[in-house]
């Protein structure tokens, strides 16, 4: 039943995107033909938002529904096409697990962190001296693995940042180990996401 609800909502949202895209496209063409450049630009930025939302939904479909023993929380899935005026790019967020043992995936396009992360990945000297951070490779992609401060009850959290060109994927996991978060990361179809997000 849950599966059918997901498929149905995907169909509904796809039809919605299509109508919104067509409407904005018609407005952009009409405004541009009549030399109303500012309104043509506004309609185009609306289209960017629709596309980012569509891309975000497509990425959500690619993400695993289970991280080892952790099920995803369908109600907490978040996608945003953020180019509705002041910021551009897509945003995807999925949560897994309950209580203390949880994980999350966040994908942001045009993230301001990208430059810093790439600098860390490509200049090993920058990360030297921080024993809680190291560079690793997952599915051939260079990433930064960070060991967070343990919680009061001694549970350990990790964060893995994987940049693809102008997109940043961040995987976070609580009550976990380095081996387990790497295992989680290997469940994510990184190459497919990188292609779609660009």
């Amino acid at each position, binding site marked *: 039943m849950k599966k059918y609800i997901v498929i149905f909502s995907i169909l509904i949202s796809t039809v919605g995107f299509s109508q919104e*895209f067509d409407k904005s496209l018609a407005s952009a063409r009409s405004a*541009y033909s009549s030399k109303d450049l500012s309104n043509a*630009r506004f309609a185009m*930025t609306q289209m*960017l938002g629709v*596309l980012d939302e569509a*891309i975000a939904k*497509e990425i959500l479909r690619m993400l695993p529904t289970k991280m080892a023993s952790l099920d995803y929380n369908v109600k907490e899935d978040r996608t945003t096409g953020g180019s509705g005026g002041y910021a551009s790019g897509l945003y995807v967020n999925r949560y897994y697990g309950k209580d203390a043992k949880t994980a999350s995936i966040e994908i942001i396009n*045009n993230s301001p962190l990208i430059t810093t992360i790439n600098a860390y990945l490509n200049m090993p000297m920058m990360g030297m001296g921080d024993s809680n951070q190291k560079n690793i490779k997952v599915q051939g992609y260079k990433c930064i693995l960070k060991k967070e401060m343990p919680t009061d009850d001694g549970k350990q959290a990790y964060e893995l940042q994987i940049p693809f060109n102008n997109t940043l994927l961040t995987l976070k996991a609580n009550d976990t180990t380095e081996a387990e978060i790497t295992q989680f990361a290997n469940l994510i179809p990184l190459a497919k996401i990188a292609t*779609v997000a660009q």
Partner: protein
Amino acid sequence: MRGLIILLIATFIAINSSAQFLNKLKQKAEQKAEKALDKKLGLGQEENKNSGNNQNSSGTNSGNSTSEGGARYGKSNPSNKGGGGLVSAPPDVKQNLDDAEASYKKGTYGEARYSIQQAILGVELEIGNQILKSLPDAVAGLKKDETQDEVSSNGFGWAGLTIQRKYLDNNDKQLTFLIANNAAWMAAVNTYMNMGGMAQQTNGQQNWKQTKFKGNRAIIEYSESSGYKLSVPIGQSSLLIFEGVNFNTEPDFMKAANEIDAEAIKKQLGEQ
């Protein structure tokens, strides 16, 4: 003991001179090898022409062929002598909209997004050029310098359009006018606007203050080295910046800035 010292010194000199000899021999061998290689590659003649300069400038590193600006095999890379530059072609807006529609129908959203960004880039460049055309030919006796006109955009829409025009004379007096349709810059200016405590004052000489420009709140700054600067946020996401060099007084500078029709620019940018 004395004999031992003399023997040690003699040995040191002998080793040193033998090392120098070996080093020279090595350099000679490398030079011969490079010449032979250049000859094979047909680079020998040009190298001979340049060799005098190279030896003088590279000094003791003459044997190191990569020491001069990335030169390889003892020869500098050729400098470009023309090629006409890039063809100035702003993106075709209609074509990019068609491409975006086709990509969207195929479900290749990334391609559709790229086409839309190109279309936005095309429209923003047109807006920028229209605004530049609408600006006056002269301001406060300073003539426009069209060679320094600039329009730039990143194609993201509402986040990165900048337009620049310079007015100048032959006496180092200059007014630079910049229009930025850029939300990030707006945030910085609005921070200044909303924090009255950020006013600056040095030894009784105020170098920063809030003012008004054609009814809009604005910030005016002065620096001995760079002159006057007026920043005026307009609408929701645009900023006008005037920079005046060698203006005698603040009223002179403000009078020059007032010759720009801010309302017309606001309208062209689609701002409220």
